[in-house]
């Protein structure tokens, strides 16, 4: 199985490489169009800011490339946000794979801290990423912006209010949380991604 990880100006790519290795897969980290198109799976991970990462993707023509991919693609954290149509972070037009606008968490009271940092649970699970899940599983989040509930939601989480913590449309999958840092539950999600028919 050839797994390619999109190389761009976002942090936290090495933890995804480590997670793939723990599953017995040696991933290729690349921004080469041919290699990305030829891979069996593409992972679009990262931590970063929407406008600067999006500008980099456009400059390197990775925006059109990612949209055109036909194999299963998994966006993680900022990767998921960039796969939406627009982000309030830097008022940024994004890839438009998911018809959704990324919004900033607005605290309702003092206990609502932004970013959300830590373990929160998943409900309303849909699709192959969550095969074998019952709902209620905890995963690890670090984020200040969120995707509201929408038709593409593959999982929901409650922080301040309910929101979409995973998305799924055709061959595109995305998680707001970090499966690579979410213990055994996260490893099952990554394994499920590798096993999509």
């Amino acid at each position, binding site marked *: 199985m050839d797994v390619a990880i999109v190389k761009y100006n976002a*942090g936290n790519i090495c933890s995804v490489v480590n997670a793939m290795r723990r599953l017995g897969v040696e991933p290729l980290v690349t921004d080469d169009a041919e290699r990305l198109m030829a891979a069996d799976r593409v992972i679009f991970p990262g931590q970063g800011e929407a406008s600067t990462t999006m500008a980099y993707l456009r400059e390197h023509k990775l925006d059109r490339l990612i949209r055109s991919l036909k194999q299963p693609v998994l966006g993680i954290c900022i990767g998921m946000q960039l796969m939406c149509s627009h982000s309030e972070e830097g008022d940024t037009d994004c890839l438009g794979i998911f018809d959704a606008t990324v919004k900033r968490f607005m605290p309702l009271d003092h206990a609502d801290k932004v970013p959300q940092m830590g373990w929160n649970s998943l409900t309303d699970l849909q699709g192959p990423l969550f095969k074998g899940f019952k709902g209620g599983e905890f995963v690890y989040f670090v984020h200040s912006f969120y995707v509201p509930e929408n038709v593409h939601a593959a999982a929901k989480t409650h922080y301040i209010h309910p929101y979409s913590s995973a998305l799924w449309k055709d061959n595109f999958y995305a998680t707001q949380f970090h499966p690579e840092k979410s213990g055994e539950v996260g490893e099952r999600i990554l394994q499920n991604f590798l096993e999509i028919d």
Partner: protein
Amino acid sequence: MLAKRIIPCLDIKDGQTVKGTNFVNLRQAGDPVELGSAYSQQGADELVYLDITASHEGRKTFTELVKRIAATINIPFTVGGGINELADVDRLLAAGADKVSINSAAFRNPQLVDDIARNFGSQVCVVAIDAKEVEGEWSCYLNGGRINTGKNLFDWAREVCDRGAGEILFTSMNHDGVKTGYANEALARLADELTIPVIASGGAGAMEHFRDAFTQGKADAALAASVFHFGEIGIPELKSYLCAQGINVRI
């Protein structure tokens, strides 16, 4: 709902854990990777590795260790000890750490907090504060209590929060090692005054101390070392207890 976090802390010297010889079923009791793995499997939500090595050689050993931890462990981990400048942060994050914890370097150069937040994001910047209450006044100390900075705990915590710290790791020196519970009043005041998560440290001796840190102390996370290392409290039983007490934890 966001879960309250339980965080074992491992002290590392020359690449080996200092405490923790009482841990069962480990091939190498002193191996920080194996100990961290065991905690992770038991349900620890995060790990903190503190490098207490003084020498330059030891620092290199620690960076290599961070790479091994990152390759093996599938939950977030923070590293601290000996971080003096941005280059140290860069080196440790590149090795695979999720967050760094800074303490005395922040006092020497408060701008470092701003720089870490701007270059790597607030979420990687944990500011550790060791403080002691003397005659009702909480002051920050360095070097294991030998140096009184003269800074008030709450003033300093607010300052680093404003500068972009992502979390505060507050250790009460009055409570550390005494095992009679965390400094819940000071914790609650920090939680009320700050807009970032607070990790309670110092004083855990029984399961109800964790409960009190979360309820009375309003802490987002509780850190402990010896009660876990010496097997006095198991993480699975602690989490079951907290759950039964109505506290949202990851089980």
